[in-house]
């Protein structure tokens, strides 16, 4: 019996090692396009000229999937306590010749966002804190269409590329308060690259135009509640809050990316990104009176060293600094629903700094990536002074393994674990002058901002190659759990099926 167990154990270990070894030699498009090793080239892909050089193989995928998330209590009330978002998407990357490449994506997503509170505006991450908000909230429906396409080509040592990304999204609620946000978002990228001796240099410029019309309606007159024009850290623009529920956001920005990396992918590489986006909130019902201007500025730098021959090895350092500056327009006296702007004051300031160092190691069939970092946020409202700060240190371990049980099948297993530990926090609020509802909001946000988080996740994907065909079928399923030290948790589930070609 003991011998039998020993033999089974030997067979299991041998089979595992053999399948990993086989997969490591497999030069499939899927492996190239989904390998964890690509983490070190992701930032360069924002330059369309370099995106075209991203892969050697053609890979396309049509997927029907669903993303589900549930939080026992909303970590960020403005983003809701979870979602159910089915989607249908197609993506392709196709080298046309040795010189030219095209790529593109199109997707449709629809679903439900659960229990969104203190936010009646779409794209919270982009526009916060300048959103329309109420205390009631509720589930919202979301629908998103996105399409993008790019082309890159080589002319001697030069590399040129362009990419267009379009997103149209609407979010609405079918019961009071009936919020509606309709978003159009257009991004155009132009990039260039040049091979200078053994190095590839790249630079790209990105322009963005953003618009959102946003309104809230109440069908039951007795159920009308105030809509607040939020201005940060629980403050609101009192004069235009209450029954002013129709506004729009007008914005856009510029970004520049710079890149340098060795042509043979072995050596030092550097990526720098600088972004500046601005979003103007205007009251539609008062002749487009500007209420607030939000300026989002971001600087990101990555420097690393990698070697990519029989073993992939990379070490890297990354720093990401972003700053939000919010200006409030001071409305003068009205004249036939026209409010002149008599002054503009900078009242909201927020800084987020994230820095981490990491190492990636692996071979064709498996990779491990470890990162350790620090993250802090400093948010303040200038007068009356309000401040909320928090910091975290974190460690993250990611692993990926390709297993080929037979010629037809390829399994991809991804797993990750991370732990975020709070390093301290600070909260200053004029509590005596705040409404109870706003105090509750700030308490909630502060509690979750300064908590510790443990995160675990895994995903398995099975690809099946159809006989004598370039088509394949795939199915993937994944899940994750995040435990928060305040006693709440988040569960996530992802599943999709589709065709690769």
């Amino acid at each position, binding site marked *: 019996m003991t011998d039998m167990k020993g033999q089974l154990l030997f067979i299991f270990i041998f089979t595992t090692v053999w399948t990993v070894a086989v997969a490591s030699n497999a030069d499939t498009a899927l492996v190239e396009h989904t390998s964890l090793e690509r983490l070190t080239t992701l930032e360069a892909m924002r330059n369309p000229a370099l995106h075209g050089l991203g892969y050697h193989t053609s890979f396309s995928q049509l997927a029907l999937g669903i993303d589900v998330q549930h939080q026992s209590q909303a970590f960020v009330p403005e983003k809701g306590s979870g979602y159910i978002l089915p989607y249908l998407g197609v993506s392709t990357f196709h080298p046309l010749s040795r010189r030219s490449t095209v790529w593109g994506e199109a997707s449709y997503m629809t679903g439900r966002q659960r229990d969104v509170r203190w936010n009646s505006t779409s794209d919270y991450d982009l526009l916060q804190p300048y959103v329309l908000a109420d205390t009631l909230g509720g589930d919202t429906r979301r629908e998103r269409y996105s399409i993008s396409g790019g082309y890159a080509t080589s002319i001697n040592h030069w590399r040129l590329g362009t990419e267009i990304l379009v997103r149209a999204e609407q979010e609405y609620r079918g019961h009071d308060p009936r919020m509606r946000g309709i978003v159009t978002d257009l991004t155009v990228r132009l990039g260039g690259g040049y091979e200078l001796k053994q190095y590839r240099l790249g630079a790209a410029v990105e322009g963005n135009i953003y618009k959102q019309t946003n309104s809230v309606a109440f069908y039951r007159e007795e159920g009308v509640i105030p809509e607040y024009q939020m201005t940060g850290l629980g403050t609101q623009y009192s004069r235009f809050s209450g029954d002013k529920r129709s506004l729009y956001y007008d914005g856009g920005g*510029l970004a520049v990316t710079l890149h340098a990396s060795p042509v043979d992918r072995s050596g030092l590489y550097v990526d720098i990104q600088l972004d500046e986006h601005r979003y103007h909130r205007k009251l539609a019902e008062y002749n487009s009176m500007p209420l607030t201007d939000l*300026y989002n500025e971001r600087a990101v730098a990555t420097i690393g060293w990698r070697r990519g021959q029989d073993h992939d090895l990379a070490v890297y350092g990354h720093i990401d600094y972003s700053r939000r500056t919010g200006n409030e327009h001071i*409305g003068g006296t009205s004249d036939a629903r026209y409010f002149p702007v*008599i002054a503009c004051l900078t009242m909201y300031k927020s800084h987020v700094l994230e820095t981490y160092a990491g190492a990636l190691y692996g071979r064709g069939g498996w990779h491990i990536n470890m990162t350790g970092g620090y993250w802090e946020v400093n948010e303040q409202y200038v007068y009356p002074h309000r401040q909320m700060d928090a910091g975290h240190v974190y460690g993250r371990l990611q692993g990926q393994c390709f297993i080929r049980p037979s010629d037809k099948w390829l399994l991809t297993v991804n797993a990750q674990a991370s732990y975020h530990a709070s390093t301290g926090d600070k909260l200053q609020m004029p509590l005596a002058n705040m409404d109870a509802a706003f105090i509750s909001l700030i308490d909630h946000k502060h509690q979750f901002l300064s908590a510790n988080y443990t995160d675990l996740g895994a995903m398995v994907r099975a690809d099946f190659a159809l006989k004598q065909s370039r088509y394949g079928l795939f199915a993937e399923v994944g899940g994750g759990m995040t435990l928060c030290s305040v006693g709440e948790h988040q569960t996530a589930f992802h599943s999709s099926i589709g065709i690769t070609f």
Partner: protein
Amino acid sequence: MKQSIILFSLLIALAMLFTACAPVEDDIFTTARITVSGEGDVPITSVQAQAKLTNVNTRQVITTADFEGTSATVELLRGAYQIDIEGVATCPSGNSAVRMRQFRCQSDYVEFVQHGVNEVTLKTIFLD
């Protein structure tokens, strides 16, 4: 030559980005000097009063009773204000005699947005 073109392009791109930086207006406070003057030709030498300034946009209320003569000076957030003043004014009534008269002043809209000192004079309404 090629390097020069690359460098020039990068400099143009960086210049575009940095000239687009956020316009920051950190000078958010100003000084308001509010002066009370007598209704009609009635002279006032001093007042004892409480002034209440309500920011029209934020609804924030500032009060002061620190009048020197007929004027009070307040540091406040730049913006538009509603002003209410209630108190007692000292009015000379000839032969070195003075008369104490109750008054109030009110303005629905005053702009205090200039840097430096913003001056406003409000006429009293005598209540006696």
